[in-house]
């Protein structure tokens, strides 16, 4: 375990920035997002949740993969490679770290999504323990360890007040650590004790959160039975504005659309984020199988809570980051759905 004083961070950022693209939670115009670091940017490592998740780094919102041209009746195609350099992502919360694993299950299974893989391979992820979880956090219900070092992080870090503790967890992490070793000292026995204390603190805070009583195992019924509870789906969908805020902010939502920019004799093929909230979601040549907002909203939550776990050994496609609970303009969120479906711990 290594230790770095917070006063050394600017130098550390500079050093990392020289070799990599460095992405940090940066505050700009009232928003906090993972953005490319430049000297003088306002880095905020205190607030636990960035507005948007960092998924755009591995799954860009829009990505062109093919350019085509028609000249003198001859069609030519040009494959566009994935853009971007090697990067370091610092300050990723354990929920967002887990979301990468959930996206891997989709994009890295056969056939592997080559663009996603390139983005994923280029990144070094440094997690940060959640010293101050927010009211709308409910990661514990999804098995996320907000206090411990999350699996999937190349380096795990914890905020210790005037310093950070770093634990290297992968080869990539080790390589980065070696290149910045000069800013670090070895952690002492005392630091490790303090860390254990801090982890306990975090666990205590998590227990006290307003949504700590959700328990997915209490959701009963077969896929068909949950699907058929139209009264519940109607109740939520009649208030739903059908905007895509929830799906675009969600770290695990991964639906995309394939579109063309069409010119008179040339164009581009690209993919972009889609949302089950959009009226043209699942629109096919024959028409749309989901014609109402009820069906689309139901799709969103069935996907998170039923379909994904069915295909991935019971793992839910939610990490409890709380962005949907925080940002839905009309307060529809997955916690309310889970509770409505019966997923609440029984009060003693």
């Amino acid at each position, binding site marked *: 375990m290594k230790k770095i004083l917070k006063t050394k961070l600017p130098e550390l950022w500079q050093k990392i920035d020289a070799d990599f693209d460095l992405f940090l939670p940066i505050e700009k*115009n*009232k928003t906090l997002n993972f953005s490319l670091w430049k000297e003088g940017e306002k880095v905020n490592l205190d607030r636990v949740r960035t507005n948007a998740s960092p998924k755009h780094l591995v799954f860009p919102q829009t990505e062109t993969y093919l350019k085509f041209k028609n000249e003198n009746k001859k069609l030519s195609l040009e494959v566009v490679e994935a853009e971007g350099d090697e990067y370091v992502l610092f300050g990723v919360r354990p929920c967002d770290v887990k979301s990468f694993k959930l996206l891997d299950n989709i994009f890295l299974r056969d056939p592997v999504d080559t663009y996603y893989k390139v983005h994923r391979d280029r990144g070094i992820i440094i997690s940060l323990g959640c010293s101050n979880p927010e009211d709308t956090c409910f990661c514990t219900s999804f098995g996320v360890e907000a206090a411990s070092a999350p699996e999937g992080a190349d380096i795990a870090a914890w905020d210790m007040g005037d310093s950070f503790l770093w634990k290297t967890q992968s080869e990539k992490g080790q390589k980065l650590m070696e290149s910045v070793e000069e800013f670090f000292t070895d952690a002492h026995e005392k630091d490790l004790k303090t860390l254990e204390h801090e982890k306990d603190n975090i666990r205590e805070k998590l227990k006290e959160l307003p949504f700590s009583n959700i328990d997915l195992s209490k959701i009963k019924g077969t896929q068909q039975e949950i699907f058929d509870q139209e009264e519940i789906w109607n109740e939520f969908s009649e208030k739903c504005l059908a905007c*895509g*805020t929830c799906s675009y902010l969600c770290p695990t939502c991964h639906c995309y659309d394939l579109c063309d920019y069409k010119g008179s004799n040339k164009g581009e093929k690209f993919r972009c984020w889609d949302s089950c909230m959009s009226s043209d979601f699942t629109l096919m040549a024959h028409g749309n199988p989901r014609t109402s907002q009820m069906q689309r909203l139901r799709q969103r939550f069935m996907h998170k809570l039923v379909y994904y776990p069915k295909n991935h050994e019971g793992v839910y496609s939610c990490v409890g980051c709380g962005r949907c609970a925080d940002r839905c303009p009309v307060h529809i969120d997955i916690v309310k759905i889970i509770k409505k479906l019966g997923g609440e711990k029984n009060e003693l």
Partner: protein
Amino acid sequence: MENITKKIRAVAKQALINKEIDKILGWKKGDLWSESYPVFITKPEDADSLIWDSFCINNLSKYLIKELPKYDKIGIFIKGCDSTSFNQLLKDNRINRENVVLYGIPCEGMVDPEKVKKIMLNDRVTRVKKSENGFTLTNKNTSKDVLGEEIKYDKCLTCTSPNPVVYDQLLGDVVNNNVNREDRFKGVEEIESMTPDERYNFWKGEFQRCLRCNACRDICPACSCVKCVFDNSDAEISGKAKTEGEDTFFHIVRAYHVAGRCVDCGECARICPAGIPLDKLNRKIIKDINEVYGEFNAGLDSTTPAPLVTFKLEDADTFSKQGGK
């Protein structure tokens, strides 16, 4: 506020029992201190879950477009800004006045949870309560008094219509409107004072964060088209790509489309997950309309024609001049 909650419940229950209305749109408290959300009620016994507090920010008027075709008569609670958007929906022929019973609520401004979190972010606020001069923020161990100005939404601090401008029954006392009307355009003036390049870069920077989630459109009471052009895949401008051109196109088209119909409720800016100050774009157009055609506030009534869809010989621009500036 507790008194108004009592009135809301009583009024809703009675109206449902008497079958004066088939459904009522109001607000309900969620699990969190900051969470008051829209609720639709058809059974009289459910009326007891209705509430009124400093977080009933959601404008319920727009729901009428979808709800009215399903029922003969709907009751709805409306604040000042909700009432102007109600009038706008009437003017746009999207709803019928005779199918709605309006319960007006004078509003003293709503609390912005983000501002509360800035003051007590990690102290686990459990309650925000109106006090004599402002609000009291409470958590497990302590409480703190703050002034209303510190935690109210920006849009509420410059609100010019705190009292409903249309209603069938008013619940609560009329609120004094002591807002300095000039303050409303301060944000616009800041942008106007920039050079064209600075202005371009300002909006470029803002739109860069746009997620294209359409929430600004979907919450807007002036965005009431049956099928939005951005949802019309046949129009080939659905523009799902996240590029500078598409983002800018979307926002400029939207702002022009609601020009003269925007009631300045500020909901677009409030709910934008990327924090884009979209209200400033609309307010710039409102300011221009005021300067060119004389002061006009959309939604103050449901009959006065909007300046941009009417022509008078005394209009500042008579269309007789050749070319632009």
